């Protein structure tokens, strides 16, 4: 087990800089997610840790060892590939036993090595030692696949293949577990239950885990901390709640959850009540937050806007009230999403839907109420 520290890592492919000066400190036992759109460098970062790519400059430490000179096959990072990369010519048992066999092979003299090669190529030529057998069956039981040990991997379902890949990586007792978009090949329902399975196993074993994904929901629901990446840079590192409630850039506000991001001009900051007045395209907003810049962006989550009938009288000092027109309403079951127009500004509003309430029809004039504290400034 170990921590992972990356210092000033840069990776270039020819003229293209895939990673700009990456710095990361991942604690021992932490579940850490690398989140970002495709091409942001998250997979490259992981491949550098695994040793499949070599950083152009910078350092990587696993535990307290610098791994720069250690080849990929001796880094002891268990990896779960996006495609699972199960060996198609081996059954479940042999896939999981592979790393243990290799360990034994590397520790043997040349004559014994021949025997192990023979055994790996054909089962008729030798038996797997008892200690390996026991270890493999133990981990297979752990991922609930002991019944399928003799099956070919192609005969398994997606979720089962995923668990074989996980077991294969875990059996070598890796210092770090690396997972590259492991859930992207599963269907929606399975993905949910696999999230729980992976999180439970990780907690249970207390293994340092780095998880690459482009799905913010996945990262937020599983990870202790998340690093959001964009165009080869780390934009923000934080716990899921920090990222959601305090995005540092419009990119994160938009990528982590949905946001209304409005261009505003800071008109005034009232020292007495602590309110900042903002002038938008065709509206005035107030916020309890402050910012130094003149031109800023106001970020408002859709669920933080309340929709009220136009004739409602609002007597609340804590909120800004805007007038809007419903452009479209989409019924999503528990919530209703409105596309609104406030002057020329488009806004998205999510309201919870409980039976009995009516949905504002399109074209209707409504009032929108926004708490001052919910208006973030970036």
């Amino acid at each position, binding site marked *: 087990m170990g921590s992972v520290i990356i210092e000033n890592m840069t990776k270039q492919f020819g003229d293209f800089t895939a990673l700009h000066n990456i710095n990361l400190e991942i604690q021992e036992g932490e579940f850490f997610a690398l989140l970002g759109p495709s091409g942001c460098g998250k997979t490259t970062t992981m491949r550098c840790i695994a040793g499949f790519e070599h950083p152009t400059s910078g350092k990587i430490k696993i535990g307290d060892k610098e791994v720069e000179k250690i080849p990929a*096959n001796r880094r002891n990072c268990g990896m779960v*590939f996006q495609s699972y990369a199960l*060996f198609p*010519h081996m059954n479940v048992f042999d896939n999981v036993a592979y790393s243990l066999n290799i360990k034994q092979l590397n520790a043997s003299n040349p004559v014994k090595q021949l025997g192990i090669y023979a055994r790996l190529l054909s089962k008729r030529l030798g038996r797997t030692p008892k200690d390996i057998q026991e270890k493999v069956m133990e981990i297979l039981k752990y991922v609930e696949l002991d019944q399928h040990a003799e099956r070919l991997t192609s005969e398994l379902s997606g979720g089962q293949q995923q668990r074989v890949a996980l077991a294969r990586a875990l059996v070598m007792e890796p210092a770090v577990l690396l997972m590259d978009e492991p859930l992207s090949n599963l269907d929606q329902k399975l993905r949910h239950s696999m999230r729980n399975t992976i999180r439970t196993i990780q907690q249970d074993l207390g293994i340092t885990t780095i998880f690459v994904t482009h799905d913010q929901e996945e990262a937020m629901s599983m990870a202790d901390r998340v690093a959001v990446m964009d165009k080869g840079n780390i934009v923000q590192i934080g716990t899921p709640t920090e990222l959601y409630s305090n995005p540092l850039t419009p990119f994160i506000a938009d990528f982590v959850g949905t946001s209304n991001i409005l261009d505003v001009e800071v008109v005034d900051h009232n020292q007495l009540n602590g309110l900042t007045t903002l002038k938008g395209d065709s509206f005035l907003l107030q916020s309890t937050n402050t910012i130094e810049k003149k031109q800023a962006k106001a970020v408002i989550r859709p669920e933080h806007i309340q929709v009220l009938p136009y004739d409602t009288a609002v007597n609340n000092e804590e909120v800004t009230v805007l007038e809007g027109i419903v452009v479209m309403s989409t019924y999503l079951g528990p919530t209703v999403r409105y596309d609104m127009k406030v002057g020329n500004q488009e806004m998205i509003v999510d309201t919870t839907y409980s039976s009995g309430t009516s949905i504002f029809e399109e074209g209707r004039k409504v009032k929108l109420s926004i708490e001052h504290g919910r208006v973030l400034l970036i």
Partner: protein
Amino acid sequence: MKARFNGLSVVKIFIYAFFGLFLIIPLLAVFLISFTNEPVNIIGTFTDPAVFSSTIDKLKAINLENYRQIFSNAGYLDSLKNSLSLALVVMVLVILICIPLAYGIARTNMPFKKTISALCTIPLIIPTFISAYAFIIMFGRAGWVTYFYEMLGGEGMLIDPYSMTGIILVQVFFFFPYALWPLVAAFKISDVTLEEASLNLGAKNWFTFIFVTFPLAIPGIISSALLIFTVSFSDFGTPIVLAPKDLNLMVVEAYREISGFFNWGGAAILTVIMIIVAALFFWLQHILTKGKNYGSVSGKPKQQKMVTNKVVTRSLSVYSFIIVLVPLLAMLSVLLQSVATTWGKDLLPSGYTLKHYQTIFSTSLGNIQNSIVLAIGALVLSVIIATFVSYFVVRQNSAKMDFMTSIPLVVPGIAFGIALIQTFNVAPLQLTGTAILLIIAYTIRRLPYMVRSTMGAMRAIKQDIEEAAINLGATPLTAAITVIGPLLLPGIAAGSVLVFITVIKETSISILLAPPEWAPMSLAIFQNILRAEYYSAAAMSVILVALVLVLQGLASYIGKKQRL
């Protein structure tokens, strides 16, 4: 990492050198000779100053006179015309014959569909010169068909096998499977929804076939037609056995120029023209199939509505049996002849004996041995080269290497043979008449098939499988032995069986290049036919076909195992 890269670079240079020496230089030499009209020793030019100066003199004398003469030479011009019209007629007939057959297999529930499909592979395993010879047994002056024909009141022969008609018939009945399977795929392109849409719009069934199903199959039909054209144009086995003296065909003419008259210039010009025509049609076919990978063959199978109308399916079935009956009867005739004491102008032989096989095993065992040794040599060389070539093409995206190893596909065997003889019959690399040149020629000619087979297997192994092994602690060598090797093996095995079979069947290269002490079975049969020793030719043919059948069975067994 670096050392491995360097090692592979050396291998790459070796492969380029091999192809350069044994494919590019010979083709270049033929091209030059077609202008100089005299042999040019390209390799000698760079090693021997005397040869160098003579080459320069020859190059100075280059002119188009030779080509001009050729086009005024009625013989050559005739042979081009004849070859083109032969290929054209065969192409049209094959497509006409195949359309109902392919439609029956692809879109109807005709009875005995599986049996018919299986029988349709027979022609592919028989070398064409044996098919041609089988036609002599059937339609010749003393053939049983001729006997039948006269019994029914006909006069003379029904069809003279020694004629253009004979050649056309042999090629049509033995080349049609090359077009059949692409056509079956083409008829499966049309989706049931399209046809139902047409019916829904008020069209009748036949109308739907003519205006929906058939037009969708047209690209496939044209592409198969071009393929048949190239195959027919390049075929040497049929014309060399059946072409009468007064019928000029390019392949035969080229063979006669080189083996009879040692006319280098003439052979070179014929070779150049042959390659240009074959390459042109191959290229046309390539553009047509490019991007149209018969969507229905791979990926999600489309739903097809099968025609169940009994009148249609039964007549298609009967028709199909008639088509596959011809090659089947041809093979049976060879089999009968091989066990006949004598078989004159009669329906059946007058008696049966195994004496011809005895003769073969006592006197011609050497030919069988030669065939096997040569085929194994070509196989080993192909496996080594193809494995590396597919590695370079798949993992390093080496388009140049891909192109170079595809060149042999467009060079007719007889043309390649002539090019090799011209290049290697003089010092410093005098290889003509050696087994080595024969093996190299077989290897280069059949390498494209081998490369395709191993490349497919290599493509199926994704990069991350290799990475997974390394991630789990394996060194690159261990990963190669325990993961990549076992996964690549089926592709190599299937490819090598294919190489072995095609080398044993190979006619043109064997006839041109094999020295007497290395004569393979195909050459022995050919000589027996020329010497009118028909019974031993038949016995040897049966052994050859049996050998191919066994290997083909082995290949499909491996293929089945591979898919599991």
